[in-house]
């Protein structure tokens, strides 16, 4: 999705080996190019600096994962970094021996798996339904409504769920007035998996349909006509034309999801972790947060974060290889 073949394509106009005759030909080509291209370099500079300071520099900072990092040593984080004792893989040993860590890994993976089964197919289904709606106005109206929650923050989404389903929410209120004891929804660890999936569906079901609707619009309608003439009914057309037409997108999205298997909505879980309890709601990202910034044990938290980043990178590379194996373009091209 991020860097397709287009980006890595060779320059549109191949530069001739010997540049066109310019007056000062004795100059090294690099200086000529610098003369020509310096404004481009200046333009890129702010972005390069931002990424350096807030992306690559912290990446180097991951060395605290191998330290017993003490922020109060020295007078700056850099001094603290230099003065903190090295502990080798000590943080990782503690990490891998920590049952809370494995709980978080397990929660993360089970949420990913659950959502793959119960969330992933829903946008496809909704896209099929929307695609079959003939009235453009109706379709446009439904799209307008269901895309909206994608732009809400997680704070808002959880707020809406609390107001609708929480202990003082609309559902409880109505049930109580009808004399029924309302079920505990927002704070029940046993059904938390379903709750977070429902929240994710509410937020992103509509948004997820966009890519499938786009893919549906590229399917040649003549295929449908021909197969209908040959006697294929509605379901057979869906099975033999529509779904194969969606296959590349489905494969690509599944692979992207695999690469992201260790990330589930971080803010979503952080917001609800305390209400539901660590046992059910601690995922890897919230584990890192609570083990480091909340408690001050930076080295340990960094180790957990580094573990996640490394496994995530491996997953992305594996996923991309799978994409190529499936004959898809993959996330990035292999040049």
């Amino acid at each position, binding site marked *: 999705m991020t860097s397709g073949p287009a980006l890595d394509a060779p320059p549109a106009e191949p530069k001739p080996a010997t540049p066109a005759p310019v007056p000062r030909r004795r100059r090294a080509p690099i200086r000529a190019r610098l003369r020509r291209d310096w404004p481009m370099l200046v*333009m890129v500079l*702010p972005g390069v600096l931002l990424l350096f300071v807030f992306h690559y520099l912290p990446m180097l900072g991951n060395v605290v994962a191998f330290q017993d990092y003490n922020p109060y040593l020295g007078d700056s*984080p850099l001094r603290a970094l230099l003065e903190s004792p090295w502990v080798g893989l000590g943080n990782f040993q503690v990490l891998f021996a920590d049952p809370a860590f494995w709980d978080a890994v397990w929660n993360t993976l089970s949420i990913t798996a659950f959502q793959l089964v119960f969330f992933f197919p829903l946008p496809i289904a909704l896209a099929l339904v929307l695609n079959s709606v003939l009235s453009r106005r109706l379709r446009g109206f*439904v799209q307008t409504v269901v895309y909206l929650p994608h732009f809400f923050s997680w*704070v808002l989404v959880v707020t809406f769920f*609390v*107001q609708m389903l929480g202990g003082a929410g*609309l559902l409880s209120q109505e049930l109580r007035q009808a004399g029924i004891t309302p079920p505990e929804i927002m704070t029940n660890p046993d059904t938390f998996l379903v709750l977070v999936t429902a929240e994710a569906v509410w937020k992103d079901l509509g948004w997820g349909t966009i890519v499938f609707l786009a893919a549906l619009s590229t399917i040649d309608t003549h295929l449908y006509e021909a197969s209908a003439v040959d006697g294929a009914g509605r379901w057979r057309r869906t099975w033999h034309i529509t779904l194969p037409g969606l296959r590349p997108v489905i494969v690509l999205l599944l692979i992207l999801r695999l690469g992201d298997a260790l990330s589930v909505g971080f803010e979503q879980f952080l917001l609800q972790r305390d209400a539901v309890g660590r046992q059910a709601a601690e995922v890897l990202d919230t584990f890192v947060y609570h083990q*480091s910034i909340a408690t001050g044990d930076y080295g340990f*938290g960094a180790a957990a974060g580094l573990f996640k980043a490394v496994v995530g990178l491996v997953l992305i590379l594996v996923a991309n290889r799978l994409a190529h194996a499936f004959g898809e373009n993959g996330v990035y091209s292999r040049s």
Partner: protein
Amino acid sequence: MTPTVPPGRLRPVRNRRPAWEEPPTAAGQTAKGAVLTGVVLAVLIPLWVVLVTSVSSRETINAAGGLVVVPREIDLSAYRIIFSGGQITQALLITSLVTLAGTAVSLTVTVLAAYGLSRPGSLGHRGLLFYFLLTFLLYPGLVPSYLVVTGLGLKDSLWSLILPSALSVFNLVVVRAFFQNIPGELMDSARVDGAGEFRILWRIVLPLSKAVIAVVGLFYAVGYWNVWFTALLYIDDNEKFPIQRVLQSFILAGLSPQQSGTAMGTALPPTLAIKMAVVVVTVAPIAMVYPFLQRHFTRGVLIGAVKG
């Protein structure tokens, strides 16, 4: 919200059933109708209830036993309270400031970098592109990022909400793809006439890219408006809380007893109408820019997704 033309006209206009298609079955139509009604109501009911409760008087809320579904009157006192100064007004100002400044910074950096990377063959092009795109594969963890931001002295500074995420490389790729689709002859002729690259960007490329700039800018703006976790990390000063942080302490405090009390300090527990009014003012800006966004985002998403 008024229905708009399907974004980007992705499909051919097809208002009539083709001749070869069998007529719809009653069961099928019912099922479809139920699905569409269901998803629309799932979004609209919460919005409606929150809006109605926020404009209800205390008596109406008490009579309803909490949230109000059927409006009785329009009572704007909750809004008068939250706009009368105090923490919510302050948070709205802070968030607006962060949104405006952040969007300006983000757009500037993104547009400049997108143009600077738009010409294959320019000096350092491949290396620089790699530098930017590598961020998709490798990302720093939470802890080192936190140490860098606090080490720069940005703790309790509003810049900590802007700078670390100011550049979205994804948006950069979208804008760059758009720039590359502008016919090169336009730039070449300007170059022949002696225009420098900055002038070309300002006078030729930007006027041709208003749509994509608007969409990317709105995406950035929504991101800044929604800023919550970075504020949790870096902003300890109540006076500098953005609105999402205040909303969290208002609404979710009841959900998680561990977090209550600390954030709101001395404020009295707000009444339901005030809480709901905060929700409404948090949603309102998004709902207002949304129609503009919707007209374009499908195309933007597709450029990013398909063209890379």
